[in-house]
């Protein structure tokens, strides 16, 4: 059991790493074709659905990544186009891509995000409220202080229980004295 514990901890740590690292896509332009590679933890993503939209929002190309996580499409005309990726049931946030001079595009690498949205409500100036779904939450400022009039009640209750317990134990020992007397009397 002891030897299994470090292995379990290591497994949990590696699971955390997987949870936090999102897939990446890298782009390169060659002969006016955009070549891309979809990876997750440096391994190819084979089931990635990729859709490309031109500057007018029309579907320009679509397809699935191959076994090497790669794919390609002709460079759309115009200054900007959009790439949308879906891996399994997860749709990544759309990537706006800018073409520079027909032989280069930016960004060249993108860390995919999924439904990235503002995370925290501003409760009031100086306080930030975090939703319950956030992974690895850092310590947050508390929003209210426990009232001082009620905080001593459990302590007082504990004291009462301790006193009552001690009293009962003492009573139990006192009971033992007359018991001995009774025992002494019985044979006669």
């Amino acid at each position, binding site marked *: 059991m002891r030897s299994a514990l470090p292995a379990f901890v290591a497994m949990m740590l590696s699971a955390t790493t997987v949870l936090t690292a999102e897939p990446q896509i890298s782009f390169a332009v060659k002969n006016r074709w955009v070549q891309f590679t979809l990876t997750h933890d440096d391994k190819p993503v084979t089931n990635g659905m990729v859709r490309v939209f031109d500057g007018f929002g029309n579907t320009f190309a679509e397809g699935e990544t191959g076994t090497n996580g790669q794919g390609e499409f002709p460079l759309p005309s115009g200054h900007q186009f959009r790439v949308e990726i879906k891996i399994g049931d997860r749709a990544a946030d759309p990537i706006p891509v800018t073409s520079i001079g027909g032989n280069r595009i930016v*960004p060249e690498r993108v860390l995919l995000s999924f439904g990235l949205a503002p995370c925290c409500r501003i409760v009031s100036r100086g306080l930030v409220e975090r939703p319950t779904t956030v992974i690895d939450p850092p310590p947050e400022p508390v929003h209210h202080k426990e009232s001082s009039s009620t905080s001593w009640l459990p302590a007082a209750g504990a004291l009462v229980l301790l006193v009552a317990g001690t009293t009962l134990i003492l009573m139990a020992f006192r009971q033992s004295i007359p018991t001995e007397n009774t025992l002494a009397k019985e044979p006669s």
Partner: protein
Amino acid sequence: MTLQNNTSRRWILLAAGLGLMAGGIVMGLRSSLKQKQPTEALPPEDLARAAANDLDRRNYRPLSGTLEALLADASYKSIPTQAHPLLGLAAPEFSLSQTDNTPISLAESLKKGPVVLVFYYGYHCDHCVSQLFALNKDIEIFRSLGATVLAISGDPIEETRERFRMYGAFDFPVLSDPSNTVAAKYGTYAPSVKAGEDGNLMHGTFVIDKNGHVVWANRGDGPFTENRTLLVEIKKTTTTR
């Protein structure tokens, strides 16, 4: 019979007494733990120290070595940009006041070179402000690349000024965006859809090239403390565009 009665009575009293004592001890311990929790969660007394602790938890270490060595290290894997609607587009212009009430605009800052724009929650909790401490430690390296660092939050000027008085100022402009108007333009703040409710915000870091285009963006619920990645991205803007 009396012997049995007395013995069992004694045992019952003993058991009840011990049970009550145990209950009292447990209750006392729980009460003391409960009283500790709010103290720990309260805004830390020393925000600067708390921010330093937050950076430690995030494994932040100040950059060491020359700028050339940092950028030449091929083994370093920089963090790619996230998808952001502003990528490749002109960064929204703004002019905001810093702690001495003088305004600073993005356009003015871009005349000096690329800009690293940081949206932080405000100077009121450890992770809210820790990125500014990390940037401050490496600020000279950013300057050596000709980059300007600007930090923006919804904190009123007076509040930032008070924090500076308490913990010392940062070596870069810290700007006030009390209505979060600029943050909304950069997608790090979303106003509430319900009237009377406060909005939602995110940490956000942007690299803007000297031509005013957003070339790298990162948003999320934690501060971005990988300064080396920012240096790599700034360097790219000076060599490829």
